Structure formats: C-alpha cells, structure tokens
C-alpha cells in the first residue's frame, strides 16, 4: 500500500532458555494504528521493545526506515525520590525540538499548569500525559505506546484514545500500541494483533473478536457494544487459527497490506 515504517520478520526472542516470542511478523505503515492485545505475560511489552530495538532478538530481522523518528511512551517510569526533576525539565530532555513546540504539546495535552510540578508528584493520569508529551516532542513518524490509558477512568480513556487518533491524522504517523484487552480497544484501530508468545490472529477489531483463538484466550463474554466500530471483513482465516500449530499459515497480514 505505502512505504512501511518498521518491519519485523520472523523475529524470535528468548531469555534464559525460555522462548518469549516466536516467529513474529509485523509491519507498521504510516497513518495506521495497530493495537496489540493478549493476556499477561503474552510478550506485548517485549514485542514493543523488540520493535524499538531495545530488546535484542535471537533470530529474525528488524527493518526500519532510514532516519525514522520514533516517539516512545513506556509503561512505567519510576524516578528515584533523590532526583529533583520538574515536568518541564523532564520534557526538555527530549531531543531536538523547537521551543514553541513544547508549549504547543503541553497545551494540547493539558499539562501546562503542571510544568513546575516535580515528576514524583504527578498522578497516574498526569504522568501518562507527561510521557505522551515527551514522545510527541520528537515529532515522531512512529508512535509506540505501551498501555497508554492505564490508570485512567473510562472517560479519560476514551478521551486519550480520541486524542491519539487525532494526533495520528495530524502527524500522519504510524501508531503501534499495547492495550490490555480488546474490550477497550479504540474504535479507530485499523488492525488488532492478538499475541500470546506468537501472533494468534490479527485483523480488524470486529474480525478478531470472532476469531476462535481470540475466544480461547479471552472467553466468550465480549461486550460488543464497547467496540462500536464495524468493518467489512476482507479476508478469512481458513486455518482456524489453532494455537499449537506452526503458524506458517498466518500470512493473511501481508494479504491485507497489499490490498
């Protein structure tokens, strides 16, 4: 369709003799939102770190568009109490942004009034927005977000998801993010990837919800009204996406991308 920003090919990663992720194929394009879902320990954060080049894979390839600017929003940020750091000092650590950019980003995320607050005194939601602000300051072509809405109430979650969708359109950037379950996946997600050590199934939110391997992982009780986005399903899962098989049949992602 268009030039990819980042690709993982047959990526496998193991630590201490345990395979955490195997045979991962992933492609992120500009203007596309990809959401990773999966149970605890499925390797969602690890996959993000692999995509970011932070975790070294055992085999496979990571191909990145040259000079790709990535904005990363980590899941946690534990600053020691001994480090006196105000929000503005934290944001200023981002690389190569223009002074008025900082002002704009802060206004956008509603954190202007917090700029002189010590980082350790930010609430969970404030810290999330601070981390997103830092990610945006690098004017990213690819946004990588690790559970961006954690610790927010339902209103805050939809607000932040909406903002991410807007930002994607404005920056025309690709978005790769982790969400803890499909129930809360934003309507604007183009593609959901269901992960459990390997890619179980992937596709549009509606499609994934009906996929047998998704149901096996998350059960049947999916409140459909939380995913109001309906979409025409343009490919089918002939192989039934069984968990234990060897996954060479999982190439429907590339089919989807070439449409």
């Amino acid at each position: 369709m268009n030039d990819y920003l980042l690709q993982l090919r047959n990526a496998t990663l193991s630590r201490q003799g345990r395979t955490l992720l195997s045979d991962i194929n992933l492609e992120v394009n500009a203007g596309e939102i990809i959401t990773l879902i999966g149970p605890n320990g499925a390797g969602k954060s690890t996959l993000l770190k692999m995509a970011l080049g932070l975790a070294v894979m055992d085999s496979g390839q990571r191909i990145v568009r040259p000079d790709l600017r990535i904005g990363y929003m980590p899941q946690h940020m534990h600053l020691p109490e001994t480090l006196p750091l105000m929000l503005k000092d934290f944001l200023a650590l981002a690389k190569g942004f223009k002074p008025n950019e900082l002002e704009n980003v802060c206004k956008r995320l509603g954190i202007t009034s917090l700029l002189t607050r010590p980082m350790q005194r930010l609430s969970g939601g404030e810290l999330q927005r601070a981390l997103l602000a830092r990610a945006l300051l690098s004017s990213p072509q690819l946004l990588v977000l690790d559970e961006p809405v954690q610790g927010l109430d339902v209103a805050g979650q939809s607000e932040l998801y909406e903002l991410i969708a807007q930002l994607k359109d404005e920056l025309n950037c690709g978005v790769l993010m982790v969400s803890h379950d499909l129930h809360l996946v934003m309507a604007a997600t183009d593609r959901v990837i269901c992960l459990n050590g390997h890619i179980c199934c992937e596709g549009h939110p509606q499609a994934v919800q009906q996929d047998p391997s998704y149901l096996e992982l998350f059960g049947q009780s999916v409140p459909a009204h939380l995913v109001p986005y309906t979409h025409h399903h343009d490919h089918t899962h002939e192989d039934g996406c069984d968990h234990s098989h060897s996954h060479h049949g999982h190439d429907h992602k590339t089919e989807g991308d070439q449409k």
Partner: protein
Amino acid sequence: MIWLLDALLAGWLLSLMSGPLGSFIVWRRMAYFGDTLAHSALLGITLGLLLDVNLNVAIVLCAVFIALVLASLQRQHIIPSDTLLGLMAHTTLAAGLVTLSLVDNVRIDINGYLFGDLLAVDREDLIMMAIGAAVVLFIIARMWKGLLAATVSEELAQVEGYPVAKLRLLFMVLLAVVIAGAMKLVGVLLITAMLIIPAAAARPFSQGPKQMAAIATVLSMFAVALGLIFSYEFDTPAGPSIVLTCAFMFLMSQLGHKTFLAKHAD
C-alpha cells in the same frame, strides 16, 4: 601549614568532581557500584608499581577494567547484583592487599591508601587533580543532557537517539578518575562517602538536578575545609574527619528540612 593548604586545594578539586558525579551516583542508585570500583583502586596501585606506570593512570585503568567486567557480569542475571558487587569489591580489595605485600622492593603504607594520607599529597598530585577536575567538569557540562536523560530512563533515551552505551562507559571512566583523585585524600574505604553524602545532603534544598549538583559541590567543599581544620586541631586522621563532617552536614540538612517543612505546613 603549607601542607594544609595543599590538602585543602586537593580536597576542593575533588569536591568539584565529586559534587556533580556523586549526584549522578545517588540518582542512578550506583553507590555500591562506586564502592566496588573504589575497592579495586588498591589493585590498581599494585599493578602500577609492578608495571612501573604512573599510579593515578594505573588506578583509572584498573577501575575502568573492573567497571567493564561488572557491567558485563550484571547483564548475565545469574548472580544478583548486590551479591556480585559485594563479591567483586572485597575480592579486588583482598587481591590488592595480597599483591601489594608481594611487591617486596617497595615499602608502602597501606593505611595511607585505605584511609587517606594528606601528607602524601604533593605538587604533582595537585597538578594531576587540577587537570582531572577540569576534564571531568568539561565532559559533564558537555554531556549533561545525555547523562541526565539516560539517568531518567535509559530506554527512552536510547529510542530518542542518545548514545546510551557510550554515555554509560563515559560515566564509568569519569567515576574512575574521581576515585583516583580521592584516593590520597580520603582513602579507598571512604571514597564513596565523599560521593554520596554531600549529594544526599543537597537533595532537600534542590528543585532541579543542576542545582543539586551545585549545592552538593559547595557542601562538599565546606566539609573538606571543616574536616581539615578539625583534623589539624585535634590531630585526627584527615579523611575520616572530612567524612564525619559530611555526615554531620547530612544530618543537619535533614533536620533543617524537617523544620522548614513544619513551618510551612501551618
């Protein structure tokens, strides 16, 4: 009196380095790492004597080597970090003591190396320390943003394109230089105190990282001066006297901060 002046000068040069660097050690929770490197300094001395190279250079090289070994061992995740650091600290110290006793053509005052020996500070040391301090301060000033970004979050810094691995190595080299500089003044066993106590004392009064580094430097200079005067007046060992003064300042800063908070709570 002239030796006291030399010692004061040496102590202040050390403070200029240990203030900022000690702050980083506190922020990065690397106190035990620094301690381990300091313990290895004695081994550096022996190697320097055996190979007949400048002792300061030998200490720096040895500390950098140990730092690299530690960094690669810590990545294995087989032995917990604190065990590994304790193991390395005392092994290198023991190795230093044993090998030092085997070098039989030189008589060395081991106490002086363990607890510092002010009388041993000569003009050559002062010049070395002045150069060291200038280089360390210059590098910290130039690399400040990157060092701080990596301290806040190595992963974030790496994604943003900071040379995180190089910065880590640079930090270790700087630390090694400071250890070599502190050795004669406070000795192997007390170097870490000079690094972390002034920084910890500066914390309650700091709003930002630069401010904390500056306050730590000033407090450290105060402690050096007071400690030396104390040592001169009461004929106590200089290194421990300086460290005790640091500790006293830390105590006062905590108390002062509590009273300050109590007053402003009303």
